[in-house]
């Protein structure tokens, strides 16, 4: 078999798992990363890519307001949009024209998050967590169903659509059995220590024999790592809300802020649960984008209000935020008053070190992207089509992670960071 073996933890060198290691001081050798993924395909003509008065584009009502160097299509029906850019334009970079080369949600999601068509490729957030946050209890907090962890599964944890993780972390909030007479065994601390000794003792024997090398070694290491992280995560149980309750965007933002501030996690993937897939009735984008930008404003306010881990700074100074839908919408309405899928995307990048207040790339009157000089990010007729992998590699480079191993042969998009 030619399956690639995961040996990333081993190759990373000094990471030796154990509770003591995980509890070690939260070394900050790179920023936190939050990826907000408004799923479904946002129509950027409602916000960051204004196209008014064109026969080629069905645009909403509004007017172009320029914040710093960013033209934004504002309107009283989208008050949060203007409020967001009033507050955060200087920190926000807009990148236009990423070509995902597909118009199917799942495929586009994979490409936008991972920069790859490979089913086993990890997304940007997983890579950042692996490189920068392995000492955290839960390096990669997944507040979204659509995530890709590939070989980095051990550092990631799903909360679940109805916050099921809570039921795993807190015995008092466990899913109730059908027959209430059947209570689970609940051990005392001493009893739990005995159980741990049994499990870890047998795993150690496996590591000396059947799991000494390669794939098997990784599986047992992941098993032990998962258990250790589970124990470290239990004190945070109440942060995840009530099991059985849908986590809304506001709750996700609060959880993400708590997770980063406390050092529980290094990276977060967040799906605001706003369905931007407006095939029937594109006018819904008005409310959707207003809610999205209100949430982003709330997120940034929260980051700016909380202390960072470096002396004197805020969490915003130590966090990079990416906002990207997996695809966008056609320039023109379809017969149902909606818009269909469009394979060119615009994204936002903001936060620590980002050269904000600017726009990279552009789309023309037909929403087709211009070519870009990838190393500088400048529009260039002799340049290349911008792809998600260029952008993701550029983000990795900007946060101090060498992208070469993850995106071999890909030129990182320049101009993102100061």
């Amino acid at each position, binding site marked *: 078999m030619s*399956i690639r073996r995961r040996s990333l933890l081993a190759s990373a060198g000094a990471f030796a798992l154990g509770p003591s290691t995980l509890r070690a001081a939260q070394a900050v050798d790179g920023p936190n990363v939050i990826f907000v993924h408004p799923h479904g395909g946002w129509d950027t003509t409602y916000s960051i890519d204004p196209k008014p008065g064109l026969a080629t584009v069905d645009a909403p009502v509004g007017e172009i307001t320029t914040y710093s160097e960013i033209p934004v299509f504002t309107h009283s029906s989208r008050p949060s949009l203007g409020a967001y850019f009033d507050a955060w334009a200087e920190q926000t970079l807009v990148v236009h024209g990423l070509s995902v080369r597909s118009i199917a949600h*799942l495929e586009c999601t994979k490409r936008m998050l991972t920069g790859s068509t490979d089913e086993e490729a990890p997304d940007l957030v997983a890579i950042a967590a692996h490189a920068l946050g392995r000492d955290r209890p839960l390096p990669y907090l997944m507040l979204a169903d659509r995530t890709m962890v590939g070989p980095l599964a051990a550092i990631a944890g799903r909360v679940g659509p109805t916050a099921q993780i809570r039921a*795993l972390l807190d015995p008092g909030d466990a899913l109730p059995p059908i027959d209430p007479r059947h209570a689970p065994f609940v051990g005392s601390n001493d009893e739990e220590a005995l159980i741990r000794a049994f499990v870890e003792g047998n795993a150690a024997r496996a590591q000396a024999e059947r799991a000494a090398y*390669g*794939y098997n070694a990784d599986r*047992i290491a992941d098993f032990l790592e998962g258990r250790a992280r589970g124990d470290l995560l239990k004190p945070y149980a109440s942060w995840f809300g009530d099991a059985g309750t849908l986590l809304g965007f506001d709750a996700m933002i609060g959880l993400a802020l708590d997770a980063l501030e406390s050092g529980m996690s290094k990276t977060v993937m967040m799906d605001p649960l706003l369905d931007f897939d407006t095939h029937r009735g594109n006018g819904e984008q008005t409310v959707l984008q207003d809610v999205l930008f209100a949430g982003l404003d709330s997120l940034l306010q929260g980051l700016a209000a909380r202390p960072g881990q470096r002396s004197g700074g805020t969490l915003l100074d130590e966090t990079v935020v990416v906002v990207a839908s997996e695809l966008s919408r056609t320039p023109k309405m379809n017969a149902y008053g909606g818009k269909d899928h469009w394979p060119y995307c615009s994204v936002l990048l903001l936060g620590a070190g980002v050269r904000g207040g600017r726009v990279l790339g552009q789309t023309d009157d037909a929403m087709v992207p211009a070519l870009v000089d990838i190393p500088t990010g400048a529009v260039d007729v002799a340049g290349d089509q911008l792809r998600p992998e260029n952008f993701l590699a550029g983000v990795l480079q900007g946060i101090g992670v060498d992208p070469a191993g993850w995106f071999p042969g890909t030129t990182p998009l320049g101009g993102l960071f100061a």
Partner: protein
Amino acid sequence: MWALPWLALGIACGPTLEDTSVEPAPARDPAVAELMPAQYLLRASMVLRGVRPSAAEIQQVVDDPSALAAVVEGYLYDPRFGDAMRDLHNEAWSFRATAQTNVPASGTLADEPMGRLRRSLYESPLRTISYIIEEDHPYTEILTADYQLADDVVARAWSNLDGYDPAVGGWQVVGWTDDRPRAGILSDNVLYIRFASMGSNYNRGRANSMSRALLCHDYLDREITLEGALDLSNPDVVADAVTASEACATCHRTLDPLASFFPFRTGFALYLQEWPAELYDPNWVTQEGWWYGTEVAPSYYGQAGTSLDDLARDILADDRFALCTAKRFYAWMTQTPLHHVPDDVAGDLQDVLVGSGWNARTLARAVVMHPDFRVSHARDAATADGLVGLQKVRPEQLERMIADLTGFTWQTDVPELCCGAPAGSSPVGVIPVTTDAWSGFQTLLGGIDGAFVSQPSNTANTTSTLALRQLAAEAAAFLVREDFALPAAERRRLRGVEATTVDEASIRAQLVSLHLDLYAEQVAADDASVSLAWSIWSEVHRSSGDGTRAWQATLTAMLQDWRMFYY
């Protein structure tokens, strides 16, 4: 090195190894350690049935490795082999949508809990497939059957099913009352509620789902580079582009004619509000309904046809169908990503399948006998690279395994409406905790949900180990309580002790027996693992004076060991 007695494998009951003229593969590199007989039996049992081998079976193969063939053959005829085949095909198709919330409880399905609707509605094509396999019908029948399977929910969901007997219950073979083309699972309405294909996309989404599952050809893997400003919102422009634009036509000249075969009302299924429902359009074939959709006549890569049964015929004549089937069996049974399945192995297995008269059981047998299936571990680091040894238990396997070992079925009642559920929906109701993605731990255990999480995770992480620990605590408490309430001979596991038993020899003897039941390991009473378990039992008993509690603690530990998570 121990080696399987290859030529002895293949007993009566259907096509066997000798029938298929497969030569045993040569021995592996000596640096690759193969599974010992009991370990091999454990893996075969987990893959083919999702449960552990019995103690008697393990003893049998340890005493006489040549008995392996007969025991494994028995697994291929175990009723739970059908469960495994459904799990396998679900990973190919993603029929089960345990995170879906858009199934209304109305009309003939009013008052049915949403959890039940989800589990039944999406299961029918998988039941049809496993029925065909278990009945040793040619596997090709999944595309030619003039019947499908239904339970009482499915029978009430569709207005055109006939022959279901509510008095008998369970899953039954039923027929269609309309004149739809008879093309096995392609004729099942579930294909149309499960795979969305919106508006002007017509049936292209469904056609690609079929292509991906049956031919291992996913049109979405391709890269689309639009030529200039193509207005994808305009059906006329799209219709023109899919033939005139080379970038589009590369896929659409074969995809669109496939989509034109599907005689179902496009887009309709997403808006189902009432049961029973009717999705089949009887005018499709007679009035060339495709004209209003793709505007391309049905054909299979240039082979003209008119209806779904023509499509089925052409797929069956395509070598890629057998090759893809072989790849999917191997990939699932060895936990190898589909695109990593070696071409030569896939080719050999394809020959096995076709040569057996399309007997899927024979294909499963061939995979179980393949050297890759026997890999235990590497003896050095260089050899370890690229070698899959341990397989991770899937949520569906975990559910069956724990129920079989302990009698415990992990369920919970979700009495509320599901988030985002349509008006008139029922509460979720009782769900299986390990295999429900919305309220349970299916994706947290590394499983797929059929909608958002499309790839399984074959390793451990924080949530999967937490779930295993909680399940262990639930199942251990249940097992000990239930067993000690019964006479020793009637118990499931704890037959050698009572709650009052305290002598070390008896306790260790019981622990030895549990190592056999749980891990398929024959160990001595002074084995290190037994001693660790004895430490738990003795310490808990010393501090609590409670034999029941001591056994619950001990079994909680044993059931969360890595040997329950990997095999």
